[in-house]
């Protein structure tokens, strides 16, 4: 706790001053993944990527920059890691530091290196001596039996001694170490300075066996697995896919095209169907030259595929491979897979199926162990006679816990803090303005009129159809008070409608403003220009389809993100663009304001999510770790966390405070396109192209439910204001309502489940589904619950 307190103060300092508080340049890892994006520079700024590059002025800017990064890195890197994994602390940390030092030396940053070394009290020899652990790893691969024993010895410990592993979970280090996420790529290849990362990555494939034997190896293993006991078969079957991929890539890399082709033909049918997107990419990859720029391929190489296997099953596999002297397969298992061994019963096929599907296997167990403050922040006290609202919010909180229902809810409102809530000032939040307070009061008044929803009292749905949207509707947002609707279109425009009788007006010209009596009571009314009143305002500025839109909570601003790589901030007073935030060089798929305003998050094709503050033109945090596009980004209701859904089929939760990845959720079988937090902050619902909605318990880091029913991409998700109903909208032209209370009712959050992460999902989608409402060929792009729990849905009518 002491460490945490320290961090808070530190970060508070970081966020407040206008000096750019950028503390991490994790671009390198991202760059390594990007490959083709011209990130072959390991030069002074190499690690800095966009951020550093954009801020460094001239040639000498390079030197001070990393120094800042490192000095920030040292304490942060030292502090959070032990906190997160106390038992793994020492070796883990050391590896990271070594990697950082290597990087610095390479980049000729003597000063920084010295400083860091002094800080870490490391000797030069130590660095030289230990070398790159990655090399040891690959070099030692020949000694099969020795390695076998090594893995068995090391695997039970949560941190295996290989740095790439830690790099993949990357996030624990991200904030601290400059090259954290780059570790998998770099550590093995520090010696090669000018070579692109790709070749370094690929070099692992250099050792080769007899290409004609591959099929035999694979079918041998297949036979073995299929003949093993039922309980082991399911677990061992997980091996098929990663092995298949790596064997195929090895064949391709070593230019055995025909063998590769026949290998693929023969075995791709065995793979689970949810990998077919990746398989399709693989199938087109038939030449060594193709591997250079292929992102999917690089993902496989740069991150270890994580499998969770019980000890028994693992022993079985090991014995088999030893008997058969099957070095080829064993090498792959050693080098490219991360086998997370657990004690106890092997998992059932169902349990495995629920969790697998992501690009890099399951999340490691320890990746989801850190504490997450998922509680809500205390609402500021505002003098309103009746405020039931908080009570309700708390009630939700108390319900599943059974123990402390009412007392807590009444008491906590004024005094006690939710035990799961973060400290009030963990993240500095903007002060409430008078207008915000007024809005809060309005909100509370509305709350008293809110409909209590339930299976017997379903909400009404009002559908806003965008007609004549031939140019393509790509994003929609509705203000919290449901007075404005913004639409982002493929023709680069953003359009804002007022759906109340109150028309949209902009502020008068400066010359006219000077004439106004500033003392008058209705000055706010007087500054508005009546002549500009209209129902619709069009915002021009982007140069590509607008994929994301988000209103600020105070309705003064609108954010939009576009294919042109920028996020734009628009004023809804003047209806002009205020800032263009550049940072993502590629399309920005989504953006969202924090529930408290000021901050916002964006995510895009460059595989990172960025946290921004409206008054900084550079991002405050870069959340790197996803292996594919970040498709959607959402703030936690307490603004301390950000969830991102990605095309790598994982959902990650990031801590805004330190940029760490605190949760990795796997289980989706397709790119994730929608996210939403429950109003009490405990749960997360995610929807993907596979048409399923998955529910997650953030505190325990577990999947708690699966809602099947949609037949196409789930584009929008939203909980009702009190969290009783989950509404989902999809490309299949339906809105569906689900019973959220029942879904979260009896959770398996006992210690065993939590510890092992084995979940048994009830097959109850049908019971949870409360209603399905077809639209007329209108995909449901956005959903919103008004303060009185009326559902607003929006989409563009698409004539067939």
């Amino acid at each position, binding site marked *: 706790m002491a460490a945490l307190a320290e961090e808070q103060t530190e970060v508070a300092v970081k966020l407040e001053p206008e000096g750019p508080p950028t503390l991490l340049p994790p671009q390198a890892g991202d760059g390594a993944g990007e490959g*083709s994006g011209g990130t072959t520079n390991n030069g002074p700024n190499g690690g800095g990527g966009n951020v550093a590059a954009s801020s460094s002025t001239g040639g000498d800017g390079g030197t001070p920059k990393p120094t800042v990064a490192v000095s920030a890195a040292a304490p942060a890197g030292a502090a959070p890691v032990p906190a997160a994994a106390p038992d793994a602390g020492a070796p883990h940390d050391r590896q990271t530091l070594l990697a950082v030092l290597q990087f610095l030396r390479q980049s000729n940053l003597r000063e920084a290196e010295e400083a860091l070394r002094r800080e870490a009290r490391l000797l030069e020899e130590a660095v030289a001596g230990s070398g790159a652990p990655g090399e040891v790893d690959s070099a030692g691969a020949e000694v099969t039996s020795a390695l076998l024993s090594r893995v068995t010895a090391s695997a039970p410990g949560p941190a295996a001694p290989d740095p790439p592993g830690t790099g993949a979970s990357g996030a624990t280090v991200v904030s601290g170490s400059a090259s954290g996420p780059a570790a998998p790529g770099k550590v093995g290849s520090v010696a090669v300075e000018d070579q692109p990362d790709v070749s370094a990555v690929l070099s692992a494939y250099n050792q080769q066996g007899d290409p004609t034997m591959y099929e035999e190896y694979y079918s041998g293993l297949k036979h073995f697995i299929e003949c093993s006991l039922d309980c082991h078969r399911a677990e061992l079957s997980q091996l098929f896919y990663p092995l298949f991929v790596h064997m195929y890539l090895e064949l391709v890399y070593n230019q055995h095209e025909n063998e590769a082709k026949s290998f693929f*033909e023969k075995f*791709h*049918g*065995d793979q689970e*169907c*949810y990998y*077919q*997107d990746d398989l*399709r*990419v693989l*199938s*087109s990859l*038939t*030449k060594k030259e193709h591997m250079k720029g292929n992102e999917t391929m690089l993902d496989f190489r740069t991150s270890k595929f994580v499998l969770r296997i019980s000890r028994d099953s693992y022993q079985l596999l090991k014995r088999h491979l030893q008997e058969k002297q099957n070095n080829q397969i064993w090498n792959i298992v050693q080098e490219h897979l991360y086998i997370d061994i657990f004690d106890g019963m092997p998992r059932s096929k169902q349990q495995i199926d629920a969790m697998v599907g992501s690009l890099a296997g399951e999340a490691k167990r320890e990746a989801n162990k850190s504490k997450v403050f998922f509680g809500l922040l205390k609402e500021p006290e505002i003098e309103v006679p009746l405020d039931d609202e908080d009570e309700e919010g708390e009630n939700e909180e108390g319900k599943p816990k059974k123990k402390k229902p009412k007392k807590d809810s009444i008491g906590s409102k004024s005094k006690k803090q939710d035990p799961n809530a973060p400290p009030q000032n963990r993240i500095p939040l903007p002060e409430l303005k008078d207008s915000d307070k007024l809005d809060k009061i309005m909100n509370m008044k509305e709350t008293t009129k809110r409909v209590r929803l339930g299976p017997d009292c*379903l909400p*009404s*749905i*009002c*559908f*806003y159809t*965008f*007609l*004549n949207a*031939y*140019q*393509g*509707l*790509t994003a929609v947002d509705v203000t919290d008070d449901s007075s404005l609707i913004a639409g982002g*279109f*493929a023709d680069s425009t953003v359009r804002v409608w007022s759906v109340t009788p109150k028309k949209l007006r902009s502020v008068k010209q400066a010359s006219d403003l000077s004439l106004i009596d500033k003392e008058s009571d209705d000055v706010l009314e007087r500054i508005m220009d009546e002549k500009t009143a209209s129902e619709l305002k069009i915002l021009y500025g982007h140069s590509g389809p607008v*994929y994301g839109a988000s209103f600020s909570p105070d309705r003064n601003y609108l954010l939009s993100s576009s294919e042109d790589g920028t996020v734009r901030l628009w004023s809804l007073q003047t209806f002009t663009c205020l800032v263009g935030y550049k940072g993502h060089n590629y*399309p920005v798929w989504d953006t969202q304001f924090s529930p408290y305003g000021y901050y916002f998050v964006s995510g895009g*094709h460059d595989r990172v999510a960025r946290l921004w503050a409206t008054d900084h033109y550079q991002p405050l945090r870069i959340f790197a770790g996803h292996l594919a596009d970040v498709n959607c980004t959402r703030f936690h209701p307490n603004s301390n966390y950000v969830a991102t859904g990605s095309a790598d089929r994982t959902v990650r939760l990031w801590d805004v405070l330190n940029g760490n990845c605190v949760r990795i959720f796997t289980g989706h079988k*397709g790119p994730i396109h929608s996210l939403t937090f429950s109003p009490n902050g405990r749960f997360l619902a995610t929807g993907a*192209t*596979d*048409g399923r909605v998955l529910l997650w318990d953030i505190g325990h880091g577990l999947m708690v439910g699966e809602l*099947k*029913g949609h*037949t196409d*991409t789930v*584009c929008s998700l939203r909980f009702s204001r009190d969290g009783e109903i989950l509404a989902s909208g999809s*490309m299949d032209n339906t*809105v569906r309502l689900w019973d959220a209370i029942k879904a979260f009712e009896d959770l398996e959050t006992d210690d065993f489940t939590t510890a092992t992460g084995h979940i048994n999902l009830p097959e109850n*989608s*049908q019971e949870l589904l*409360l*209603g399905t409402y*077809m639209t*007329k060929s*209108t995909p449901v*792009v956005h959903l919103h619950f008004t303060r009185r729990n009326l*559902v607003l*849905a929006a989409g*563009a*009518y*698409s*004539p*067939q």
Partner: protein
Amino acid sequence: MDIRHSEFLPSLHCPPFVGPLPVSHVSFSSACPIPLPGSPSLHRGLHPSREEKRDSRMAEEKKLKLSNTVLPSESMKVVAESMGIAQIQEETCQLLTDEVSYRIKEIAQDALKFMHMGKRQKLTTSDIDYALKLKNVEPLYGFHAQEFIPFRFASGGGRELYFYEEKEVDLSDIINTPLPRVPLDVCLKAHWLSIEGCQPAIPENPPPAPKEQQKAEATEPLKSAKPGQEEDGPLKGKGQGATTADGKGKEKKAPPLLDGAPLRLKPRSIHELSVEQQLYYKEITEACVGSCEAKRAEALQSIATDPGLYQMLPRFSTFISEGVRVNVVQNNLALLIYLMRMVKALMDNPTLYLEKYVHELIPAVMTCIVSRQLCLRPDVDNHWALRDFAARLVAQICKHFSTTTNNIQSRITKTFTKSWVDEKTPWTTRYGSIAGLAELGHDVIKTLILPRLQQEGERIRSVLDGPVLSNIDRIGADHVQSLLLKHCAPVLAKLRPPPDNQDAYRAEFGSLGPLLCSHVVKARAQAALQAQQVNRTTLTITQVLSLSTSAPGSGSTTTSPVTTTVPSVQPIVKLVSTATTAPPSTAPSGPGSVQKYIVVSLPPTGEGKGGPTSHPSPVPPPASSPSPLSGSALCGGKQEPGDSPPPAPGTPKTNGSQPNSGSPQPAP
């Protein structure tokens, strides 16, 4: 899977590939194995319940096998030739092919991302542009095809070509044509998708029970008998329907029947109407049989277009059948006409599937065709128009609902033939039977009517020429004769070779021969005249159609040019033959249906004109008496086109256009 590769490939290829591309179609489609998560097969795969696993794997294997294909190296050669490189080595071609195929796949996969993020189901050329931009490649500017561009096929010299046709455009044409209308701006429209859990049946919402479901319920009650499983039903059902054979689908469906809840076997159908529905029913039925023609038109329009009448169908059907029963006895011609128009409106409603009520409707309609007496004064009233109208209805019913199991058409044919063959049948019934048969199509006329022409001619002659027995018989015989001539002439014109000889006709058809002959000659002349017009009309019509696909609200626009440009065309048959030959095998579906469209729409217009003018009839509600007739004839003429093309109600085209005009289209 809504991706049409041709949609983006042209844009990929156009600049470099000047000449036609000798690319086999197979490799094209497989060169872009686009995974659409929306595609049914994947969905099935997504829920690999244990027993389904093998199945899905198999399907996937099938799918992925395609994906490893590459462009033929021949294409490279052609491209090289078009760039001026004459000799290119086979090996080079092979290398190029591999590379190009890989790159194309890569770009297609990236483009998919943009499609998904753009919330679309259809890949567009702009997606390709953005994908190219991602790769730091200059996008191909200027290729914005919104609509599907079909590949043309040509073969010759042992080569098969698929190419994308680019017409030369005369710039002056473009300059001289008036500017198109400015497209409507984006606007927002709100409606209730659901009110406290219930979806209101308003035009903005899809019909509560989609036609397919109604059809499934009616034809295969067991299959659709799982309303509870509806939610994942479509999921699995779709997947199986799309990829595997029907047999498999049944296998899969068997287990739920066996071990699943037997309670769910019977589809729940709710027969209680809400208060609103009861009110609606009352209003509609009153308006339909009331005296105000404007109200009636509105009510019929409502029946013909409103979604959500599904639940009221049983009542409507009973209303009609009871109404006919009563009014036939009372010889109330006007009411019978109103009721038939209701039937027509019900048939026209694209959201209703009447199969379950056909057993009630057919007898009612048949009654209106063959009943001995339909009106109080058979000598004056124009009950013939009613018979014609009802005959067309029956033909329509046959077309839509006749299957090998219910044999509606053959049963109806039998009924008609039987009453016609009977010597004692009165002329009214005789007329109805012939009209009913004639409406069933040319084949029926050829096989059933033509052989009996001679016999019938004798009978007519005996009445017309013989001693005057009764005026009514005379009128009847007269009508039968003109009916026969009208229907048989076009068929004969098609069957017989041109030289029309009075004697030959007399020899073959007896007393009707000479008349027939002159009619056939007239038919031929008109057909020839028509043939010239056809080219023009088809042209205009296809234009209208293509317009209408781009701009919704097609229904009315398409019908009007047809009826106006070709007002009185008799020789229908000729029209068909010439029209179908005129544009050769271009795109089979589009123009083909257009031609049929014209054909069927023609006869009623001619008739509708003749009907009311020749026989103004004073029937019970005197004020409105002519109107039901003209109304019916008009409505027959006008609405026929909408659903006459045989597969119309099932085809998405009519379904699609209907909602357009009915719903979210804003009032400009």
